[in-house]
């Protein structure tokens, strides 16, 4: 079980309102990802849920039990830190067994659980090593092992993969997803990596300056962003936002077109000159300076052979234009 409900949770550090007020429900078994720009309060929100910070106002409940004032250990949550926070003087075995030892389990029970966790995480051969003798990915797995042996009602991850190289990130991402599928435990995952958010999440929570911009499944956020912030934040490269007369023509303050929804046409559309063209093989990213629509990013097929200075005509694919009002909200 792990249903987490936040009601008007507020957090300020002295004068600064880091989180002005958040309402959020996380269902049991859900994989929820918090994304947002640096400094928007993702870690703070996670630490509030963990109990490592006190809320300034509001209430928090786990499985219907009010935990607003509960100590971290009483909440039944496990956290994986960005720096892993392994205990350097303990062997891997002792690291993983530490929460069990603190819970007062017998040595035999501890050993059994550690062995089982090590098997799941491929750590069996490393149990007698110290964290300092492990690679980044192995340390990450130890940190996860330390979290899963407690059988928590929810896992909290704070950018757990940001210290790993790209290839390992992909592997670990898949391992965590698989872990979620087999354990079916609630997971809250903080990241600023789009790909992680899109691939792993059941539900993405987009944060900006301490408040929630939108909550929804990855595809909901991609297809129907609630406002310009989400539109710009989700999707890579960023959505093109066009303001001015072109938007007014469609009765909006701004219109948004994703680079992958921008077509190259032979006539009509918006004329422009290619500023930059990046050939990735499968795709070509073009940066085009248009006459009326400003600078646009286009994701074209790998076969497109345009280079600096060429003239192109661009038009959004039909039905793929997002319209936003002057308050930034989608129309």
């Amino acid at each position, binding site marked *: 079980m792990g249903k987490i409900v936040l009601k008007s949770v507020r957090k300020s550090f002295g004068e600064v309102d880091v989180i002005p007020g958040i309402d959020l429900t996380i269902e049991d078994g859900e994989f929820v990802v918090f994304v947002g720009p640096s400094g928007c309060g993702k870690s703070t929100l996670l630490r509030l849920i963990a109990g490592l910070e006190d809320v300034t106002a509001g209430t928090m409940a786990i499985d219907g039990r009010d935990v607003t004032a509960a100590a971290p250990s009483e909440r039944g949550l496990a956290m994986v830190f*960005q720096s892993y926070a392994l*205990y350097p003087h*303990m062997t891997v075995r002792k690291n993983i067994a530490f929460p069990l030892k603190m819970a007062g389990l017998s040595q035999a029970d501890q050993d059994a659980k550690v062995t089982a966790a090590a098997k799941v995480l491929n750590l069996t051969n490393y149990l007698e090593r110290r964290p300092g003798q492990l690679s980044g990915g192995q340390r990450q797995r130890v940190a996860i092992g330390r979290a899963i042996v407690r059988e928590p009602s929810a896992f909290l991850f704070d950018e757990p993969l940001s210290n790993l190289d790209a290839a390992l990130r992909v592997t670990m991402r898949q391992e965590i997803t698989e872990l979620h599928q087999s354990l079916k435990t609630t997971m809250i995952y903080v990241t600023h990596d789009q790909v992680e958010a899109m691939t792993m999440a059941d539900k993405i929570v987009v944060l900006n300056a301490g408040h929630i911009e939108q909550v929804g499944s990855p595809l909901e956020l991609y297809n129907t962003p609630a406002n310009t912030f989400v539109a710009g934040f989700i999707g890579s490269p960023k959505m093109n936002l066009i303001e001015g007369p072109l938007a007014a023509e469609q009765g909006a303050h701004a219109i948004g077109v994703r680079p992958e929804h921008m077509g190259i046409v032979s006539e009509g559309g918006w004329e422009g000159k290619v500023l930059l063209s990046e050939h990735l093989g499968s795709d070509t990213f073009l940066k085009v300076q248009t006459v009326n629509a400003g600078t646009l990013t286009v994701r074209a097929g790998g076969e497109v052979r345009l280079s600096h200075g060429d003239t192109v005509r661009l038009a959004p694919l039909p039905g793929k234009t997002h319209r936003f009002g002057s308050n930034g909200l989608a129309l």
Partner: protein
Amino acid sequence: MSTQSTRFAARLMVAPSVFVLFIWMIVPLAMTLYFSFRFYRLLSPERAGWTGLTNYTWFFKAPDFWLAMGNTLLLVGGVLVITVVLGTLIALLIDQPVYGQGPLRILVIAPFFVMPPVAASIWENLFMHPQNGLFAAVARGLGGQPILFLESYPMASVIGIVSWEWLPFATLILLTALQSLSSEQLEAAEMDGASGLNRFRYIILPHMTRAITVVVLIQTIFLLGIFGEIFTTTQGGPGSASNTLPYMIFKQAIVAKDIGRAAAGGIIAVILANIVAYFLMRGIGKNLDA
């Protein structure tokens, strides 16, 4: 510093310093050794010559020699225990975010800047003095008898004074160790359900072992030679109750003006220091390995 050539270069470059330091050490040691086998009294310069082991045997036969040895070790051990335990506690305290943390830390470190004879005088006259001392005033205020610290508990008093002087050093080293502990480790332990006491025992204390080792080793070196505090306060007394090896050597050299015996005492002190160092390194030296 791990390849063959860098290691060789490193050795080559430290060689001159090692050589100078070796000379620096070996010449006085050799002279002390030489004098320890000589009859050499400043009051009777006409009598000189080899005396074999008599300077040494005098020490071993002296009625208060073993007491002085014991006192020396007691002083070292007592001060180490007090400074490490109290130093850890104070470091934990002043690591907390409190109002006026800066000045507080300076206050804690201040005793270290007081010279040993001055510190001892302050303690003797302002605190422990049976008529004028603060402790006596407190004792009388509570309706009791003033304690005669230096007469009734000379070793404990000296240990107290020396501990007061060395506590800042221990606190400072232990505080820096404490501050280098990542807060995430403590938070992880908190999430893992460790109580405050368990966090101290399983996370903080292991993290501090190296710093504690450094404190123990450095303090031992200095504490073995403690002299000024005893000279200022008890003069090794009453009787020879607070006599230590350095104080015995001082009495032979300066009071009795017997350089031969003092030299023999010095050699005994060197041997004692090496025995202590041997056991220390065997016991806790491995904590220093990375």
